């Protein structure tokens, strides 16, 4: 169904917390980008941005605050592409701001979208990135055929694309409880205006046989290695379980075409031995199957019902913004206690071969809390790209993660945004 022209959108159910949890040093956002084979041509990229903008009305917006709820308003200014000059996923002044909540950034071969999480989740933003890249390549003279993997930018946006799928799928069934044991917290001391990124390129062919042998998925394997790395770098005094948060896209489960947020988080982890003697295999055994349990449809439905029923509460609905900010911030902090770090697997990015021929790889960088380590995974072809971001020089967990993988016989190539040219970028 064709979408009626709208100048503003209420934030979707999952997004409502993001404007309140953000602060001056940190805004809940993320980066999704492609590393192309050739350097980016800025004039053509700007043209491509202008051409796809009408197709994605819920993306080219600015965040504003009403008296009771924040909302997204059609951006007053067009999106101007920016040459990257700072660290990835750093905050921009978005509160009451005329700056669009979506940024298009390029640097040499890299083309990225940095998005405020209030607009959409990564699963939807990938579609915008693919459409933008396809349009850019077309302007560069590359023949990109129509494909089911690329959204048609000449089509009209539909109501289904801008709907709040949480509300649509709210049922009278039982809601789940938010009660959950707290997790060990791995906190780093953030350096202001700094974000260190590590990309680990890992051949799928190396990791798949190991997962098959252990009877787990790639996400579970990576989650186990991440938990193991946190465990090895945790203080001896830690008695709590180490859990990590994994987002799950709900689109395939509820047959949604929403281009906004439609994902939930499941926390998986294990209580490990205090003397640091637990092995990776023990962690794998402890978390095996938990991700599948967390993605059972009744569990997801229960969580949707819980989130929507909370927003349905009259007190929450009419609470003025100032008070809501205070209350939701506490709620967000409380939720953060349930996991140590996040791991987001966006899966395989499918696209036509003609387009793939011009793309080296895809990068996803989480803009999680500044004092935590974020990990995002994706793949285009035969390689996984595992990206970590840490707002600190304390990168022992990342080192343990990759060395654990190499010890298991997995080949790893590491790149970083800091330290690859001696005497440069040193702080």
């Amino acid at each position, binding site marked *: 169904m064709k979408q009626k022209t709208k100048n503003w959108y209420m934030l979707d159910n999952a997004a409502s917390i993001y404007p309140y949890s953000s602060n001056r040093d940190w805004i809940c956002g993320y980066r999704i980008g492609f590393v192309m084979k050739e350097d980016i041509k800025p004039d053509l990229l700007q043209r491509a941005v202008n051409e796809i903008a009408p197709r994605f009305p819920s993306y080219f917006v600015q965040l504003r605050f009403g008296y009771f709820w924040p909302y997204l308003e059609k951006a007053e200014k067009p999106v101007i592409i920016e040459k990257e000059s700072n660290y990835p996923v750093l905050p921009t002044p978005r509160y009451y701001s005329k700056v669009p909540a979506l940024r298009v950034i390029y640097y040499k071969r890299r083309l990225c979208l940095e998005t405020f999480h209030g607009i959409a989740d990564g699963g939807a933003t990938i579609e915008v990135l693919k459409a933008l890249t396809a349009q850019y390549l077309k302007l560069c003279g590359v023949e990109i055929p129509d494909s089911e993997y690329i959204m048609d930018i000449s089509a009209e946006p539909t109501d289904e694309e801008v709907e709040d799928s949480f509300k649509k799928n709210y049922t009278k069934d039982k809601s789940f409880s938010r009660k959950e044991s707290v997790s060990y917290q791995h906190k780093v001391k953030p350096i202001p205006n700094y974000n260190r990124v590590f990309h680990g390129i890992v051949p799928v062919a190396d990791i798949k046989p190991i997962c098959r042998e252990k009877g787990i998925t790639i996400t579970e394997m990576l989650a186990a290695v991440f938990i193991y790395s946190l465990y090895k770098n945790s203080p001896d005094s830690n008695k709590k379980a180490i859990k990590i948060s994994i987002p799950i896209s709900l689109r395939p489960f509820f047959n949604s075409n929403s281009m906004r947020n439609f994902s939930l988080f499941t926390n998986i982890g294990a209580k490990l031995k205090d003397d640091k003697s637990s092995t990776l295999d023990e962690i794998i055994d402890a978390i095996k199957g938990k991700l599948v349990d967390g993605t059972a449809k009744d569990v997801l439905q229960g969580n949707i019902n819980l989130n929507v029923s909370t927003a349905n509460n009259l007190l929450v609905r009419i609470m003025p913004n100032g008070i809501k900010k205070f209350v939701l911030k506490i709620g967000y902090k409380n939720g953060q206690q349930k996991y140590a770090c996040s791991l987001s697997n966006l899966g395989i990015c499918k696209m036509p071969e003609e387009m793939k021929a011009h793309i080296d790889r895809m990068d996803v960088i989480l803009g999680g809390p500044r004092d935590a380590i974020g990990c995002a995974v994706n793949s285009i072809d035969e390689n996984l790209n595992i990206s970590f971001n840490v707002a600190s020089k304390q990168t022992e967990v990342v080192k343990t993660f990759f060395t654990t993988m190499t010890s298991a016989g997995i080949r790893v190539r590491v*790149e970083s945004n800091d330290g690859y040219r001696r005497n440069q970028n040193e702080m």
Partner: protein
Amino acid sequence: MRCNNCNVDLGEEYTTCPLCGENAVQDEPLIKNQRTAQYPDVTTKAYHQNPFVVFLFIWAVTAIGSLIYCGAAGKSNYLAGIITIGVACIWSLFFRPVFIKQLYYGNYLVADAAVISVFLIYIEYKSGNVLVPMASSIYIPVLIVAALIAIIIGFIFKPELGRRAAPYTIWFLICGIVGIIYVLASKNEYLYMWLAEIVFTLLTFGLIMIIDGKSAIEEIKAKFSIQQKVKAK
């Protein structure tokens, strides 16, 4: 290049391993056909202290200091109140505008006007109508009318300002109703000031509606929007 310590491949540009800091060694990479995707050089800048935090600190010190001074000197808390709210007014009028960048001025002007109004009402109330007589019946409606005139002048030159100002007119209308109730309750003779304020507000609102009514209604709806109750399937 490779790091033998971490046993990982590195790009040709790497002289040290980003994971452990050890020197990279010239060796064949295990994963072939990879090119480093570079990031720009960044000169890091520490954040400046948030000016609002500095203000809050000064304000808290002033408020506590003035309360202690008044208590020790046996003077009325009235003075402490003037100092405390006065500091907020000075901040609003003279300092905060300097820090506003890329933002909507209207929101800040309204917030500033609210701080000044509280200041005037406080002095009126505490001085028993001596220092700022009839602040709540005369000065505040005049302040609102002045704001409305600024809005009208603004949207004559920049029509989209009318849309942005529409929600303020709703608040000014609410202020007018509260003002009338206050004047009637306190039985003073300045009822006409608040009535004039309401009439002027309605005129401004009407003007906004004539110029760009559809956008103004959209703006009001967005500003006052409340999440609709969702019915379960």
